[in-house]
């Protein structure tokens, strides 16, 4: 059963929950603006070198990117189901859904690993590390700088999300949550959906602009 004590500076559980949630939405806003800066760089350079983006994007593997999109959407679904089960006092199923979410995240990272190692092998690397002669445009390294920084930052978020989901999974197992208190699960869920949200834009912008 839940042993959660409401912090003394809140009137009641509802107020504590809403405050945590507002704080977390604000954090998600800052996350969007963090990625926003990279998207602005993408937009500017793409408007300067449209042909180069077209050519360089063709080097990315659409099948792997598309598969990863599906993996993340499924993980977002199982995350939502996990949060739902915690809210309905069903920790057994909640643990199962959270574990599946972590598994999907791991699949995503494994595919990312294969994509990255292939790019590194070919020399499709950022800026000065670039050494690939299959693309004629002299500005091609720029695309791969953006590719690695944007998908890399997203990948870091996936890893952090895996850690956070593991943490709430263990707490669900321990019986920390109930339909009266489940704030951490809900917030980790929001974080995970944002990770999915960013990939929903990264996928077409990086892989599909051909």
């Amino acid at each position, binding site marked *: 059963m839940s042993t959660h004590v409401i912090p003394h500076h809140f009137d009641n559980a509802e107020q504590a929950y809403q405050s945590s949630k507002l704080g977390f939405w604000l954090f998600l*806003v800052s996350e969007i*603006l963090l990625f926003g800066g990279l998207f602005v760089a993408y937009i500017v350079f793409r*408007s300067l070198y449209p042909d180069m983006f077209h050519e360089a994007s063709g080097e990315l593997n659409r099948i792997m990117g598309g598969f990863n999109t599906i993996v993340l959407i499924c993980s*977002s*679904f199982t995350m*939502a189901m996990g949060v739902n089960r915690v*809210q309905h006092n069903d920790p057994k199923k909640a643990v199962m859904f959270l574990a599946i979410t972590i598994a999907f995240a791991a699949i995503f990272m494994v595919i990312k690993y294969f994509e990255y190692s292939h790019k590194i092998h070919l020399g499709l690397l950022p800026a000065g590390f670039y050494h690939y*002669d299959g693309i004629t445009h002299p500005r091609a390294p720029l695309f791969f700088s953006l590719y690695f920084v944007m998908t890399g930052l997203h990948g870091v978020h996936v890893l952090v999300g895996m850690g956070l989901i593991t943490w709430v999974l263990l707490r669900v197992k321990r019986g920390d949550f109930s339909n009266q208190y489940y704030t951490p699960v809900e917030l980790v869920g929001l974080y995970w*959906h944002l990770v999915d*949200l960013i990939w929903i834009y990264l996928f077409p912008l990086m892989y599909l602009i051909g």
Partner: protein
Amino acid sequence: MSDHKHDHRKTYLNVWFILMALTVITVVAASINFGKINLFIAMAIASVKASLVILYFMHLKGDATLNQVVFLSAFGFLAVFVLLTLSDVIARPPVAPVVVTKIQGITGNQGVVMARLRNSTPEQIQKGKAIYMAQCATCHGENADGLGPAAVAFNPKPRDFKSGYWKLGGEPSRVYHTVENGMPGTPMPAFKGLTPEDRWAVVHFIRSFSPNTPADTRATLALIGLKPDGTPQSVSTEKVIPELPVDFIIEQIVKENP
């Protein structure tokens, strides 16, 4: 927490199904060439998917009004960020096409350029001084004595050009090769961002300090792709990838628009 009492599971399943379908649609749509509309289709589908995730998975629909305002404000800020940046980019005159053709005229015939530039001239030394002060002096020192402000942090220390000692050889071609490729195992970086013209200018400037300035031999000339007599190879075996350093672009634009 009352708003979570009812079960959303059916909604989640429907949203999941729509998201999967939209992913397939966006991949299929991208494989058909609609010209410029492709981008708009992809972005429209992504935005529908994003809205579904936000409204149902993150249940912003039905959340407190304050949370809705806070989260949607992110997209307002993002719009300001994008539009103000783009207003600058769009207002700039187009420069790229002019530059590309110009540069290829020079680097396309690299051997000839190399053969010409490897002979030191007073103009080159003067030009090299300016580049040296900007690129090299921090480590090698303003007086070329290896005592730049950053030298303290380095091991091995930067070369004192007045010593007459050259680790990788003092022939013009060898010094050029070191400037171009750096010195592995030391902090000396590769200056691939400089044009061959600028690299040669620096080489001639550096060598003007040294009491030990050996002339090129067959071997050192081969290092920069020249024949033993110092003339260019008739057929270049290496593929030349033109580079466009900002300074060079500006220089070209100024030359073209007096």
